[in-house]
């Protein structure tokens, strides 16, 4: 390790995001850290998970071998809760495109200060382009949370003035959870909501390529509502 770990672990980031998932929400979780959110929803809240390959009521990973035909969007084996339902792909995207899923948690390559998200391609000439359901999710789901490290492994900020990678969607991100902070997207751009214990404003700002507004006097909670 060339650098000491500063701020939250991946699991702690998922845990922080989970605090904001409301009781009764229908939620789609992206691949990677977002998947870990499911394990951390606070006790007493019932959340129903949708996976775009045709399952509402996705449960945790199987404790046995599972069923190779019961998988999630990341093609990993999962289980189904009591009261789950299966449906075909067009019906699954009725739920997404039609605005029926309340909230989606995704990873990111870049988020811009206007809420633009890039998370499907680095646009490299040799890259195999692959988009999956990401563009449908950001276009259809009313509330989009992003969980991401503040920078890439080689230190390049992921929260930027303008995305340089191909977009997944325009102005779609509502809130970002990083190892250092919780940051909202407001009309004025990146808006600090909460600092991780032991992290100061200046450090977060230094790990971004865009201006960060300090915590507002009176916290706007509008992005919580779905």
């Amino acid at each position, binding site marked *: 390790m060339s650098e000491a770990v500063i701020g939250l672990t991946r699991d702690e980031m998922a845990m922080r995001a989970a605090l904001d998932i409301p009781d009764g929400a229908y939620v789609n979780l992206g691949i990677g850290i977002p998947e870990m959110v499911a394990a951390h929803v606070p006790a007493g809240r019932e959340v129903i998970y949708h996976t775009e390959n045709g399952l509402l009521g996705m449960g945790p990973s199987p404790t046995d071998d599972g069923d190779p035909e019961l998988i999630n969007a990341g093609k990993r084996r999962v289980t189904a809760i009591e009261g789950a339902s299966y449906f075909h792909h067009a019906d*699954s995207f009725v739920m997404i*495109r039609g605005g029926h899923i309340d909230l989606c948690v995704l990873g990111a390559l870049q988020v811009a200060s206007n809420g633009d998200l890039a998370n499907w391609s680095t646009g490299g000439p040799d890259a195999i382009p692959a988009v999956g359901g990401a563009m449908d999710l950001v276009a259809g789901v009313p509330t989009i949370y992003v969980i991401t490290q503040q920078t890439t492994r080689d230190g390049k900020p992921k929260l930027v003035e303008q995305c340089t990678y191909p977009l997944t*969607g325009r102005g779609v991100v509502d809130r970002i959870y990083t190892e250092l902070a919780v940051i909202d997207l407001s009309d004025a751009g990146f808006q600090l909501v909460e600092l991780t214990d032991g992290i100061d404003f200046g450090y977060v700002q230094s790990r971004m390529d865009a201006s960060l507004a300090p915590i507002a006097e009176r916290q706007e909670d509008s992005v919580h509502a779905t």
Partner: protein
Amino acid sequence: MIDKRVPTAQEAVADIFDGATVMVGGFGEAGSPIELIHALIDQGASDLTVVNNNAGSGEVGLAALIKAGRVSKMICSYPRTANSTVFPEMYRAGRIALELVPQGTLAERIRAGGAGIPAFFTATSVGTPLAEGKEHRTFGETEYVLEHGLTADFSLIKCRRADHLGNLVYNKTARNFNPIMATASRTTIVQTDEIVRLGAIDSEAVVTQGIFVDRIVTVENPALESDLVHKGMSYP
């Protein structure tokens, strides 16, 4: 009388012609009609346009069809999966074309093709490179792009259970693209784990109605792509 059963996969795919568009059901290995794909490899048709969410993995099933040089174009949302090496190599070598479509738009284009809808508007992909060159229009305060229905000459479908009229039910998330592809292709070719007597499938629970199905082959113990890949197998 109506009886859509055919004895072998070989006979079921016999008339797939060079240059055909073929929809192949499945999302990863779930619902992937591997035995029908292998029969298509044996049959020899080439210059195919294949519609599938992915582009196969390992060197079996869809990946094997691509590796055999039979596919000139893939229409898919995610041609990059664990153990997916065949498509990337062919693509980088310029030996296969790719039409990349967001997953929900792919599903809706197939559904539209089956439903006689030539085109529809969707907000998906607006502002991204995948919307470039497409007609844009604003309804209310939102901008949308025009997308076109997608149909095929043939579809290869995997289901759990069928009757001889072609009514089908699926297994869990193996349902995925199979039912909509069955509606969008001129000739729908199905492999089923089992055929049951008429009436054994609950009329309230039929997922694909017989009207969409042309041929049914029983494949009693279908291979699992992940098993074959794990064993390092390649087809043929």
